[in-house]
Every structure is written in structure tokens, then in C-alpha cells.
């Protein structure tokens, strides 16, 4: 059975070269390029043989990163290999244990596994100080590699289960985005450490070496450094981990093969039967209904959850230059930035519903109800976030004298954003990921119009708020009159522009609703 699966995988691998000539050449070029890169990395790893201290820092970290990459990358970029998807074996009577071993063995034949083996060879060379350390390195590295591959299969199988339900897909998509959001600040923190990097790496390596991710990779180092006791403990722990992961993988596999559709059936994710949810809580008018529906979408659709999660967090980034670079004015912009984001983010709101808009059109929903109802949830959010960030920003910067200007600028940007959004979401909808798709999925061929529309919305918002921006700048330059002028002008201008813009958007909607629907159907 194991041999069968490996042979199947070898055939799949060979078939890479049996498509069109262009694809085959592309594959060869890709593999050669990749091979050079991997070989280079392996040589670097092997060269760590010269410094045991460096090796004991680098290799556990690299090995742990390898396990994480093995686990995470297939989930996002390639999906789990569908040809060897355990569910496909449901109709064959294959013993579970053999299938579990066979699928891991088959994964060992793939290109990523071969690359990992080359890197592992470099690791073994790096540890080859004594006979004992070399022997331990061979065993431990093999255990580490197998752990990586088995974990990858295990997590993929769990995710395949989760992905077959809508709720599961949504959760995965949101987790993925949070991961991406965290990576950026993490990198900037590490980059800012500079000299502290070495200490941090040493500490991290020590921690990782005692974590499940690092046991296998740190064990040979202990032996090489003359501490075989610790090394053997780590090796034993690593082996135990491998057995544990394998048993888990085997269990999930068994569940999947025995009952391939068990998870996809159980799905609801909805409220109790006769509950109207938010539709019962907002005013029972067309406007209230639209607002309640938008709010319900915010709660249930990951595409909105992401922007909901991002908007309150982004202004915090302005604190980084303040605390690390002594830039005194950035916290003052926290309120204006959150206001800008809240207004601007609505500029493609209709596209997210795709052609479901037909219900509004056949119901003869008025432009005012449609536009205002859509904005109402955003306004409610802004009513909380904008004052909070304005006050927090002013407090952090300790410039209470500039409070009116910060508030005026925020209101002005918010109103300008609503005006631009109300018009642009009718006139210029552009394609977005469909509901239920991963929010990272960019629709093909839409990059051009996306960038164009987003820039137009930004420029339009800033242009409509430009008088206030100018006054706020004068206020920062030290003109006391401008502080109050920015406050008063900002609030008035924001209100007027917002109301006027929503009115224009409403008229445009009433004139162009069928054309808007056609545009949404095309995109």
C-alpha cells in the first residue's frame, strides 16, 4: 500500500513535465532556480559547523520556522494536495494505519520534501563535531523532518474538514488575515531592535529549543557541546512528539475516510429560528431595514469583519513614530485618520453585495433610504471611534490646545468621505472578492480599476476637506485663531459636504440604479 501511494506520487511528479512544452520548460527553470537557492541555503547551514554557538542559535530557530512553514504554507498558497486528499480514499478499503504511513511517505517524495531533505543534510553537516553528535543529528533531523511533514498532513486534514463548512471557511480566512496583519508590525519591531537583535535571537533560540518545535533541532547541539544528557532528553521528547502527531493524524484520517462528509453536513451558524435579529431592533422603516441588514453583514461576512478589525487598529500605528522617533505630531492625526478610513471605506460598499441589489430596485427603495441606510452603521461606529481617537491622540501628544482643530479636521474628513463614497459606490463600483471567498482573493484583472477607484476616492475626500486641512496645518504652525477656525469650519464643512454628497448620491442612485445593477453583474 505504501509503495502504491509513493508510486502514485512519483507519477504525479513526473507528469509535471508531461504537459505542454512551455509548461515543462517553465517547470524545469523553476526547479533549477529553486534548487540553486536551496543548495545555497544548505551550504550556509553546513558552514555553521565552524561555530557551535552560532549553530545552536540558528538551527533551532530555522528548524522551528521550517515546521511552521510546512504547516502554514500549504493552507494558503497551494491548498492541501487534492490528489492525495484522504477523503478520496473513502471508497477504497485501505487499512487506516497503512494509509496514514503511505500518505506521509508520498509527501516525502514531493519537491518541498526533497528541498527540506537537502537542507537537513546541511544541518547534519553543521552538527558533525563528534561521532556521537553526528549520529544524534542524523536521527534527530530525520525526526524533525518527519514531524514537519506529518504535522502538515494533520493540519491540512483538519483544515479540509473545517473548510467544508462555511463557518469554518470564514474563521480560517479571518485567522489568516490577522496573521498577515501581525507580521508587518512584528517585522518592524525586529528591524528596530538593531543591536538588540543578537540578544533577542539567543533568547528566542533558548526558548524555542525547549518548545515542541525545537526539540529535534536542538538535541544534536547539546551532544556536540558536551551535554549528552540534555540532548537525549530532547531527542526522546522529539520522538514522542512525532508519535503523538502521527497518532493524531491517523485519527483525523480515520474519521475522514470513514465518514467523508460528516463535517460539511453540520452547518448552520444562524440565530434561533424565528429571531429577526437586528431587523427587529432598528426602526421598522426602509432606512432602518437597510441599516440593520448592513450591520448583520458586518457580523456575518468575513470581508467586513476584516475591515472592522483593521479600522480601529490602524491609527495605533501612528504611535510608533511618536514613541520611537520622537515625532511630536503623529498622535494628533489618530482621530483624523480613523475618520478618513471610516468615510473612505464605504466607497465601494454596493459591490460587496453583488447583484443582490435587485431587491432594492424592484422594491422601489428611494435613493435617500438606500444611501443613508448604508451609511448609518458606519456613522454609529464613527460616533464612537472618532471622538475617542481625537481625545486619545490629543492627550498622548499633550496638545490639548489643538483639540478643536483635531476634531474639526476629523469631522471634515468624515463628511467628505461619506460624500465621495455615496457618489462613487453608485458611479464606479469595482470587483471585490465574492462573499464566501477568501478576502485575500483578488478578482482577476481588476487591479487597474481597483487602484484607480481607490485613488480617486482618496483624492476626492482630501480635496473636499482641503479648507479644513489648510486651517489645521496653520493651527499646527502656531496660529491660535486657526485652531478655532479649523474646529468651526471643519464641523460645518464636514456636515454640509456630507449631507450634500449623500443627496447627490441618492439622486444618482435613483437615476442610475438599473445601470448600477448591470455594472455589478458584469464585475
Amino acid at each position: 500500500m505504501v509503495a502504491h501511494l509513493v508510486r502514485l506520487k512519483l507519477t504525479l511528479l513526473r507528469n509535471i513535465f508531461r504537459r505542454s512544452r512551455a509548461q515543462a520548460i517553465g517547470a524545469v527553470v523553476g526547479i533549477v532556480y529553486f534548487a540553486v537557492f536551496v543548495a545555497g541555503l544548505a551550504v550556509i547551514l553546513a558552514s555553521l559547523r565552524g561555530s557551535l554557538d552560532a549553530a545552536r542559535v540558528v538551527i533551532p530557530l530555522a528548524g522551528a520556522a521550517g515546521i511552521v512553514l510546512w504547516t502554514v504554507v500549504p493552507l494558503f498558497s497551494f491548498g492541501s494536495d487534492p490528489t492525495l486528499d484522504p477523503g478520496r480514499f473513502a471508497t477504497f478499503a485501505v487499512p487506516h494505519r497503512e494509509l496514514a504511513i503511505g500518505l506521509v511517505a508520498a509527501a516525502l517524495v514531493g519537491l518541498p520534501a526533497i528541498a527540506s531533505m537537502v537542507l537537513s543534510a546541511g544541518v547534519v553537516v553543521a552538527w558533525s563535531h563528534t561521532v556521537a553528535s553526528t549520529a544524534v543529528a542524523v536521527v534527530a533531523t530525520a525526526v524533525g523532518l518527519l514531524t514537519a511533514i506529518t504535522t502538515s498532513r494533520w493540519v491540512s486534514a483538519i483544515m479540509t474538514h473545517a473548510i467544508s463548512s462555511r463557518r469554518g471557511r470564514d474563521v480560517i480566512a479571518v485567522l489568516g488575515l490577522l496573521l498577515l496583519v501581525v507580521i508587518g508590525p512584528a517585522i518592524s519591531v525586529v528591524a528596530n531592535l538593531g543591536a538588540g537583535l543578537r540578544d533577542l535571537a539567543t533568547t528566542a533560540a533558548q526558548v524555542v529549543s525547549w518548545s515542541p518545535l525545537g526539540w529535534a533541532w536542538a538535541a544534536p547541539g547539546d551532544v556536540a557541546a558536551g551535554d549528552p544528557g540534555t540532548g537525549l532528553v530532547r531527542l526522546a521528547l522529539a520522538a514522542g512528539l512525532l508519535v503523538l502527531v502521527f497518532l493524531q493524524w491517523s485519527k483525523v484520517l480515520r474519521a475522514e475516510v470513514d465518514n467523508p462528509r460528516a463535517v460539511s453536513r453540520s452547518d448552520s451558524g444562524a440565530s434561533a429560528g424565528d429571531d429577526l435579529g437586528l431587523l427587529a431592533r432598528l426602526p421598522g422603516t426602509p432606512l432602518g431595514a437597510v441599516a440593520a441588514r448592513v450591520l448583520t453583514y458586518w457580523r456575518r461576512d468575513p470581508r467586513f469583519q476584516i475591515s472592522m478589525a483593521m479600522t480601529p487598529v490602524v491609527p495605533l500605528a501612528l504611535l510608533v513614530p511618536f514613541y520611537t522617533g520622537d515625532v511630536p505630531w503623529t498622535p494628533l492625526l489618530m482621530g483624523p485618520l480613523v475618520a478618513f478610513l471610516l468615510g473612505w471605506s464605504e466607497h465601494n460598499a454596493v459591490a460587496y453585495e453583488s447583484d443582490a441589489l435587485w431587491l432594492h430596485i424592484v422594491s422601489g427603495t428611494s435613493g435617500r433610504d438606500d444611501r443613508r441606510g448604508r451609511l448609518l452603521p458606519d456613522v454609529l461606529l464613527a460616533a464612537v471611534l472618532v471622538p475617542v481617537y481625537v481625545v486619545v491622540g490629543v492627550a498622548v501628544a499633550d496638545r490639548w490646545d489643538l483639540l478643536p482643530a483635531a476634531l474639526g479636521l476629523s469631522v471634515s474628513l468624515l463628511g467628505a468621505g461619506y460624500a465621495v463614497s455615496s457618489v462613487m459606490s453608485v458611479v464606479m463600483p469595482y470587483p471585490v472578492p465574492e462573499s464566501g471567498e477568501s478576502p485575500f482573493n483578488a478578482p482577476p484583472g481588476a487591479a487597474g480599476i481597483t487602484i484607480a477607484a481607490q485613488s480617486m476616492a482618496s483624492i476626492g475626500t482630501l480635496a473636499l476637506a482641503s479648507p479644513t486641512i489648510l486651517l489645521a496645518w496653520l493651527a499646527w504652525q502656531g496660529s491660535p485663531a486657526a485652531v478655532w477656525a479649523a474646529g468651526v469650519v471643519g464641523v460645518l464643512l464636514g456636515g454640509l459636504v456630507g449631507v450634500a454628497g449623500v443627496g447627490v448620491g441618492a439622486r444618482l442612485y435613483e437615476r442610475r440604479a438599473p445601470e448600477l445593477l448591470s455594472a455589478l453583474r458584469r464585475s
Partner: protein
Amino acid sequence: MSDVTDLPAPQGDPTEGPAIALRGLGKRFGDLIAVKGIDLDVPRGSFFGLVGPNGAGKTTTLSMVTGLLRPDAGQAFVLGRDVWDDPVAAKRLIGVLPDGLKLFDRLTGLQLITYAGLLRGMSRELASERAAELVAALGLGDAQGKLVVDYSAGMTKKVTLASALVHAPRVLVLDEPFEAVDPISAATIRRILSGFVESGGTVVLSSHVMDLVERICTHVAVISDGLVLAAGELDDVRGDRSLEERFVDLVGGSTEVVGLSWLRTSSD
């Protein structure tokens, strides 16, 4: 256009009489003229079937009647109100079930129907009361709390129909209402629609299932290639033959199979 001139001119004043009246309705998409100036009357109280081959212009025509697609030429009246001049008044009178358009599918079934009612300006009490009644009548009771995105194709049709009925329209415009609906649900829908017609309402539906149209419709129009080829009471249109034969006759396609000899087992 010679086929059209053979037809008798529509009866009656377009602003009174018929439930739906189309006058010279036309639509062009680039080089393709999808609907070529249709005149058609749908009498009040009729159960009207719009039949035609794929791509005949059925959906395009119905979209122009319901305000979803702006015509390039002509007018559409619903109970005398011009859909494109006085959309608010016309739309109040119609209930619409479009084909192939998405729903607000992150709402539950009950929420979606209530939402449709609220958009129509109904009070929440009335909207939710009727939504609950419709859910029960259409057999969606078990699924009313599930998100519409998790519904099967047939359930989705039913919940869309419920959304079209919730404001008690006078005219129903349904595009392929029986597609993907199982026989039991189809019977339920048919009973609801028949009751609606008996109480004075008008139903227009499109379909390419001739048997079904023949069984439930009182009037029928045959559309092909953007033109009305025949329209009137069912018996007048089909004559002494079945609707299917008459349809094939009118549309003029050949049902003879050419080639495919290898498909016949006798060739072994």
C-alpha cells in the same frame, strides 16, 4: 419583422385594461439586438406563460418590465403605470422573482422575507407576520433560521418567491420559477399561484418547460429571437396540437438529429 405584422394589434388602451402592456419594447447589447420591439398585452387575471428557446429574450423582456433593465426603446406599463416614467407607482404593484441574481444571502430566510417587506415600506409587525405565514405556506419552517447561503437551489427559489409575495402585489413577474424545484414544492407553488390568480391577481412566468405551461397557464406568448411569434389564450395559440409541437413549429428549429451514428448501439 414580418412575423410581427401578421399578429393582430394588441387590444385595448395600454394605460387601462391589461395588467401588463408592452409597446415597442426593445433592447440592444452592443451588436446583439436582444429584444426587437415587442408589443404584448397580459390581460388582468390571467396566468400568463412566456415561452421561448434559450436566448430568446425572455429574461431581458421581464427585466425591462420589472425595472431592472432600462429599455432602449418602447414602454412597459403595469396596470396603467409606466414602469420607467412612474417607477414608484408601478413597482408597488409588482412582485418579482428574477432568475440568476444573488440574494442578500447572509440573512436568514425569515429575515430576508421581512427585509423585503420593510423595503416596501410595510410596518415591521405586518412584514414579520406575513413572513412567518409565507415561510409556513412554502414549507420553509425548518429552515427559516438558517442563512439563505446554506439553502438548496429549490429552497432559494421558494424564499425569493416569498420575498416577491410579501407586500401583496397585484401582478407577479416570475422568471423560471420552477427551475430546480422538486415536484412537491412545485405543486405547493402552483397552488399558491393559482389561488393568487383566482383572487384577481395576474401571474406572468417564463419557462421552457412546455408541459408545465400547458398545464397551468391560461394565456401564452411564444418569444424567439427577440420577437413575439404568437400570443393569446392557450387554446388559440396551440390550436388542436400540443403546445410543444406548435412551439417547435413556430420557432422553426429542426428536431431531426444529424450524425451521431456512433451513438446508436445497432452500429456495433
